[in-house]
C-alpha cells in the first residue's frame, strides 16, 4: 500500500488537500495516483486568479502512459501555482505530498475540507478500486 499521510484530506479522484496555516488549501495528487500514472512528462496548471468549482477539472498531468485531469476538491480562487513543475514534472513522482504540490486555493468555504475523505476513507476507496 502506498503512503497516505494522516494529516491530509482526499478525494476519490486521487487528489490530496492540505489545510495551510494561512487558511489556504494546498492541492496535489496522491502517491497512488502518481504510481498509477508512471513517469510524469507534462503538467498544466490553472491560472492564478481563476475561480474553480468543486469537482471541476482545473489541471492536467501527463505521463508516458496517459494524460489525466486533476479536479478541484473544493470551490475557491486559485492564489498560487507550483510553476517549478513546468520544468520538473518528475517532482510529482518523487515527492507527491510536499514539493510536488500543484496549486493553492483560497476556499469559498473553509468547512468544505471536512466533506472530503480522511486517510482511512481514501485507503478504502483505493482498495475498492483494485
Amino acid at each position: 500500500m502506498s503512503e497516505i499521510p494522516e494529516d491530509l484530506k482526499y478525494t476519490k479522484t486521487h487528489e490530496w488537500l492540505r489545510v495551510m496555516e494561512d487558511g489556504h488549501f494546498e492541492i496535489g495528487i496522491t502517491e497512488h495516483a502518481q504510481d498509477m500514472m508512471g513517469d510524469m512528462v507534462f503538467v498544466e496548471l490553472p491560472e492564478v486568479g481563476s475561480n474553480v468549482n468543486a469537482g471541476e477539472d482545473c489541471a492536467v498531468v501527463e505521463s508516458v502512459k496517459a494524460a489525466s485531469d486533476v479536479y478541484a476538491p473544493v470551490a475557491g480562487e486559485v492564489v498560487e501555482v507550483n510553476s517549478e513543475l513546468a520544468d520538473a514534472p518528475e517532482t510529482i513522482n518523487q515527492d507527491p505530498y510536499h514539493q510536488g504540490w500543484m496549486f493553492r486555493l483560497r476556499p469559498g468555504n473553509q468547512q468544505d475540507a471536512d466533506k472530503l475523505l480522511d486517510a482511512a476513507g481514501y485507503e478504502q476507496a483505493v482498495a475498492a478500486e483494485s
Partner: protein
Amino acid sequence: MLIFELSEPTRRNSSQAPLEDAAVADIPQEFLRNEPASLPEVSELQVVRHYTRLSQRNFSIDTHFYPLGSCTMKYNPRACNKYAMLPGFLMRHPQSAVTTGQGFMQCLYELQEILKDVTGMKGVSLTPLAGAQGEFAGVAMIRAYHDSRNDHNRSEILVPDAAHGTNPATATMCGFKVREIPTDDNGDVDVEALRAAVGPHTAGLMLTNPSTLGIFEGHISEIADIVHQAGGLLYYDGANLNAIVGKVKPGDMGFDVIHMNLHKTFSTPHGGGGPGAGPVGVNDRLLPFLPIPMVARDGGEYRWLTEHDLPQSIGRLSAGMGNAGVLLRAYIYARLLGKEGMNRVAEYATLNANYLMALLRSRGVDMAYPKRRAAHEFIVTLKALKDETGVIAMDVAKRLLDKGYHAPTVYFPLLVPECFLVEPTETESKQELDGFADALLGIIEEARRDPQLVQSAPHTTPVKRLDEVKAARELDVVWNDG
C-alpha cells in the same frame, strides 16, 4: 543512421543540374533561398540501399502478427490496392468533368449505398479525410441540428470514461462541454449515472459499441431511450464496427449519426497519420446537414451533390472528394466480400478474439472482465504478475517483440491496471493465435525465473528500449549537422 549522415560534400550530379545562368522558374527573387537547401549528397544506389534497409526493419502486418487492440491491424487484400491503382483511377484529375468520371462516381455512389446498408443509416457522406474528421463532421451535424431547431442551450456532450480520447477532443473542438459517464464493474455504461446526467443541456452521447473494453454494450436500447427522451442525439463511434458489421446495424440500435474508420473495418491502409477516410452516416433527422460533396444518381447518370442540393450542409471538409484512392480501396474490398462475406468478417473477428481469450485464460492469464464474452478484442491484466515479479505490462510488451510478435496496445483503456488490449482480427489463422499464446506464456514464465531478462527487453530489435520519459520531456526531432 539518417540519410544525412551518409552525405559526402560535392557528391552530386552536376551534369543534370540547371546551368548557372538558366532561368529555371519565374519565382520572384524575394521568394528564393539565399543559401542552397541542406540536402543529403548521396548516390542513387545509396538512397536505394538506405530505404530498403529501413523497410526491412519495419514491424508490419506483412511480416508479423500485430494484435494492436482497437487499431484492427488486419491484412489488406492486395487486390484492393491493385484495382484502385488502375490508370483510369490513378490519373484522374479531381476537377475533371462529371461526364468523364462516371465510372469513378459510380464506385463512390455504390460505396455510399453499401455503407448505408451495413450501418442501417439513411444517408452517407464519404468526404471526411480520416476518422477524427469524421467524428468532427458527426458532432458538427449534431450542433447544426440543434441550432436549426433554435435549441441553443444544449451545451454538453456525454462521453463514457472508457471512450477513445478522440471523443472528448471532438466534442471540445465543436464547442461543447464534455461530461464523463462512469463504467460499472461489468464494463457497461452506468445507466443510473447516465440518467442523472442527461437533461435540457444534453446535446448528445458519443458511444463506441462494442466499447473499448471489447464488450458489447448490453443496455444499448435503454441508453438510446434515455438520451432521446432528454432531447439529445446518439453518436456511434465506428472504431469497432468490424465486430458487428453485417450482423447488427447501428441504425437499428437507435444511433442518429455514425462515423466509420475505413482502415479498420473496410481494409484500407493504416496511414501512420494519413491518408485515411472516415465517412459519416446519418438517420433522417440529420440528412440535410451531411458534408458535401456526395454522389447522387439521377436516371442513369451520376452527379455531385453540392451546396445547391444541401443548403443546410455543414459544408466542405476538403477541396475535393476526400481521399478518393482510399475510398476506392474500401469499395473494392466490399465488392470482393459481397454481402455474405461481410457477415463472416464479424464472425471471424469475434471467433478469433474469443478463441485467444479462452486459450489464454485456460493457461492462467487474468482477464479484466472475466464474466464477459469478448467482442472482437479483449483485455488482459498483468497486475498479478507485476505484484509477484515486478515485471510490468510494458516489459512484457517489449519482450514480445523479441519473440516476433508486435505488442498489443498497452495501458489502454486507462481504467484497467497493467493491461493489454488484444485484437487478433479476422485475418489470422489458429496456428498464429496459438503461437502468440505460447510466446506470451513463455514470457510470463521468464518473468518468474529471470525478471531482469524481461525488464531489459527488447534484445533482438534494431533499436533497444527507448527512454520514453526523455523523449517526451526533451522532444527533439530536428536533425542538425552543426
